[in-house]
């Protein structure tokens, strides 16, 4: 592996009720986070291809960790998202190299296909900063019940020369979703949008 991983962390959230009403079946979200060394910390480097390769590795690894933590068949994954937080000695472009050019394909393989854009966010920050991973339906980006997010933080990450790379996967939408829009039953699944 090209990624130099200091730690891997998996988060699972299961919501059983909201405002006193049962959520049945419970909604479940998982996030997998890798804390890696930033090979470009502290210097400007024009060619970021090493991080692009690391992004591809982590797409498969972290996507698989989420599926494993949810204990589901990959085809039952419903939404996904990705995010990265770069420690203070790195640049936002390092997050872009990890997330955008090559992460999508192995991630989609890990979650049993995915026609929709993987929503993403990125930031620079220090240990304990909060990272919000956006979520959208994996086959049809306009499914309104699945617009969501998942928050992760690690008190010791990212250190100045590290990057936190996160992928979130769910088997469900928001608890008690009821604001209309394209429903999961209406997905055509051709263009990744509807």
């Amino acid at each position, binding site marked *: 592996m090209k990624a130099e*991983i*200091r*730690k*891997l*962390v*998996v*988060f*699972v*959230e*299961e*919501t*059983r*009720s*909201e405002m*006193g009403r049962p959520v049945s079946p419970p909604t479940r979200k998982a996030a997998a986070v890798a804390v890696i060394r930033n090979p470009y910390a502290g210097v400007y480097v024009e060619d970021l291809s090493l991080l692009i390769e690391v992004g591809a590795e982590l797409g498969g690894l972290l996507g698989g960790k989420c599926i494993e*933590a949810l204990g589901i068949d990959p085809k039952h994954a419903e939404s996904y998202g990705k995010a990265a937080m770069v420690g203070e000695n790195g640049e936002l472009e390092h997050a872009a190299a990890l997330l955008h050019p090559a992460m999508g394909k192995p991630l989609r393989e890990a979650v049993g296909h995915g026609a929709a854009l993987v929503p993403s966010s990125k930031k620079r920050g220090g240990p304990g900063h*909060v990272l919000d991973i956006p979520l959208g339906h994996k086959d049809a980006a306009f499914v309104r019940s699945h617009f969501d997010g998942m*928050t992760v*933080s*690690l*008190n010791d990450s990212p250190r100045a020369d590290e990057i936190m790379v996160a992928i979130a996967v769910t088997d469900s939408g928001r608890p008690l979703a009821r604001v209309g829009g394209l429903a999961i039953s209406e997905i055509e699944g051709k263009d990744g949008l509807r």
Partner: protein
Amino acid sequence: MPEPKIRKFSTVIEEIFHEGGKPVATPLKRGTILAVIENPYAGAYHEDIAGFMKDLEPLGLTMATQLIESLGGDKSAVQGYGKGAIVGQAGELEHGALWHVPGGYAMREALGDAKAIVPSTKKVGGPGTRLDVPVTHINASYVRSHFDAMEVGIPDAPRANEIVLALVMTTGSRIHARVGGLKADEIKGQDGLR
């Protein structure tokens, strides 16, 4: 008192490979399971609250069993533990103390024959409040390599009328432990201390 009303569960499993030193062959795992429950005593002073401890026992056992499962399923791999509670602002610190007995009981029950006191902490807080849960060795509190802690919390909990209950387990010492003291292989295991 009825059984606890659960809004959500959250689990976090960390796999730590190194912290600047030589990466280890078997990563240290630190895991937590959190339950967000309704505080039956929120909003008013109640003199008699101790009965709720009994009601929390089945939930505690469910959490401890699930945490062992999330750490890989082998209870003999668990070497450290701790517990804690975050009480929402309509409750009092004393409500957090209700977790001492059932939380400790649950982990001893699930782990078999753990001898040491389960270290704990508690506080009143709001959504997103973080709690540093202390961790010590399950059979001998003085094992220095296993003095540790795990920071836990949930972005949307506890609401004012809720309590976050936390259990933490670890599979080993701090990743590069080297400050001496009683070692795990020197435990006599009679008094839970040494």
